[in-house]
């Protein structure tokens, strides 16, 4: 087992095929400790597949992925203590209360009451935690799920579209929670989104993913300067446009 100092997540030349569909076509990236890395791309670009591969849920067809030196798929048990994963459209159990959700996941991870307490704090749901999750709004559910992922302070948190489908207030709340978490714990976050403005606000580094390939990478400022654009949306259009001319 090798350990790259400072690098928490590395992916080398990752391919993933589902039958004839090529979801990823040679993705490589390195994410460092304390970094919020943003994966930006339209629907169907390969963000979810890449996050699932890093989470150890899906096996790459080719290539090597390491999380703290471990293969997340093969060394599934070992990597659980490092990784926290929030799927894009994850949902709650209607017949459990918010508190029971926190308790359930804390027990599954073999953790105690202090973790549940931290989860309560992160969720900011207050007394509503005692209500059944079926009574929660979409924003409340997302906050609860984010709290479940972050309450045990994973070293690597993979957040797939964490604000997808949320209203402005709920989105701001979720983004603040993520920022606060990184400041408090120094953990690594990989967040996927097709909302470029969100990524620009949250991330220290961004990977532009399009049709299963990372077309460019850098900090939002670097990318904006490189493409002489006013924001990341423009950067993405220009980067993809150039790629289309070169390769497609």
């Amino acid at each position: 087992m090798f350990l790259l100092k400072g690098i928490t997540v590395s992916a080398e030349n990752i391919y993933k095929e589902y039958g004839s569909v090529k979801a990823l076509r040679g993705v490589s990236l390195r994410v460092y400790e304390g970094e919020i890395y943003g994966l930006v791309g339209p629907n169907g670009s390969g963000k979810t597949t890449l996050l699932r591969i890093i989470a150890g849920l899906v096996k790459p067809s080719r290539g090597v992925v390491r999380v703290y030196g471990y293969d997340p798929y093969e060394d599934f048990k070992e990597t659980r203590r490092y990784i926290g994963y929030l799927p894009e459209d994850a949902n709650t159990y209607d017949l459990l209360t918010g508190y029971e959700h926190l308790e359930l996941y804390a027990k599954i991870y073999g953790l105690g009451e202090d973790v549940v307490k931290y989860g309560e704090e992160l969720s900011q749901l207050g007394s509503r935690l005692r209500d059944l999750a079926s009574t929660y709004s979409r924003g409340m559910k997302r906050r609860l799920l984010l709290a479940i992922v972050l309450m045990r302070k994973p070293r690597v948190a993979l957040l797939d579209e964490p604000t997808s489908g949320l209203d402005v207030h709920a989105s701001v709340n979720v983004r603040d929670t993520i920022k606060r978490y990184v400041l408090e714990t120094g953990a690594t976050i990989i967040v996927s989104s097709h909302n470029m403005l969100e990524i620009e606000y949250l991330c220290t580094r961004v990977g532009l993913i399009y049709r299963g390939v990372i077309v460019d990478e850098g900090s939002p400022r670097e990318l904006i300067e490189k493409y002489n654009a006013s924001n990341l949306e423009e950067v993405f259009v220009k980067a993809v446009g150039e790629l289309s001319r070169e390769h497609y």
Partner: protein
Amino acid sequence: MNTTRLSVFLWKELKEFTRDRKALLVTLLLPPLALSAIGLVTVLLLTQRQVFISIVNVDEESEIALNVTSRLYNELSKAGYNVSETHDLKSVLRDPSIDLIVVIPRGFTNNVTSLDRVAFIEVIKRAGISSEQVDVAENTVRSIISTISTEISELKISTLAEKAGISTYSVEAVRNPVQVKVPVYIGVHGEPAKIEDIWRPFIAKLLILSFSFVVTPASSYVIDGIIGERERKTMEMLLASPLGLTEFLIVKVLAASIVGLIAAISDLMGLYVYVAVLMAAVGGFILGVLEPGLILLHAVISFLTILATTSISLPFISRTRGIKSASSVASLISTLGLAFFVAGWIIDFYKLPSTLLKILLVVPYTHSILAIQAYVYRDQLVVAGCTLVLLVLSTILVFISTRTLDREKVLLAHTYYT
């Protein structure tokens, strides 16, 4: 495998079940309530169905024929039948409302009073949908005629004896010199059978038939547990947790089996009440012969049968994309179970030739049937053997099922998001 994680997740599954009021109602209360209500309605309908009997006397106006007619009329009326009396056979034959026609034919009186001829009374039955009550009515007619016949033969024999100067005689000894005694029931080891021994085979058949009620819902619970969890989008976070796939699937199978067992007990209670109500209507009594040992064995075998069913269906269900295709797969497996349990109602598997039985033992359901039937024969060794085999087989099946799947297959099941 971590038992703490298993118990935590299983507890969550059962907590959800107990909070689902609709599921509780359908699983626990509906079968006993619905089946007892159906039983009561059936009894009510049975009592409402009227049987129409017509007595046709075509033997002119002889006193004996009139007496027999009047006797039949009075006793059948007393028994609650709608009885009419006529001389016109043709019109009665054409009347569809008449279920049973009793004809006292021409020459009946001559025959009944002679010493060298037998007098026949014709019984004509109209073919219909519900013939059970007409059968009962026919038996009543036969019983009345038998009594009349005995009385006439008593008269004839006593007259003949008097003429022959015989003073010591028994009418029964002349009429029916060789008779079969009422059958005596014995137990498996030759001891006199108790009422429970006589009823046990019927109850065992009932228990075997009730297995057919558990195989279908068992698959549904697994479908809901796995496909439902995938469709409700709660599965992915779990699979990414230390719970892992094997523990996830084992808990789903166990939870389905526990809920299935609860449903099985509830179904059995319903079935029992249904049969008890029907039997009470005809003067029988079944609840008094409930045997705790047999009921306990049924519960254990039900659980293992569900476990085996869910284990068989698990790899197929987990790979299917949606509830519809999963249900199709599950229904195939349920049909196999259904066919076996209906066969178990009719066939004594315990007494099948061993070569044939050996082949059938490949199917787990054979063990379920055999365990219950062997209990009837007090063959504790076979009961224990079948239970053990079923337990081992279910465990192996669960193990194989979980090993044939991986996280990706269960999570994506031919669909994916990029």
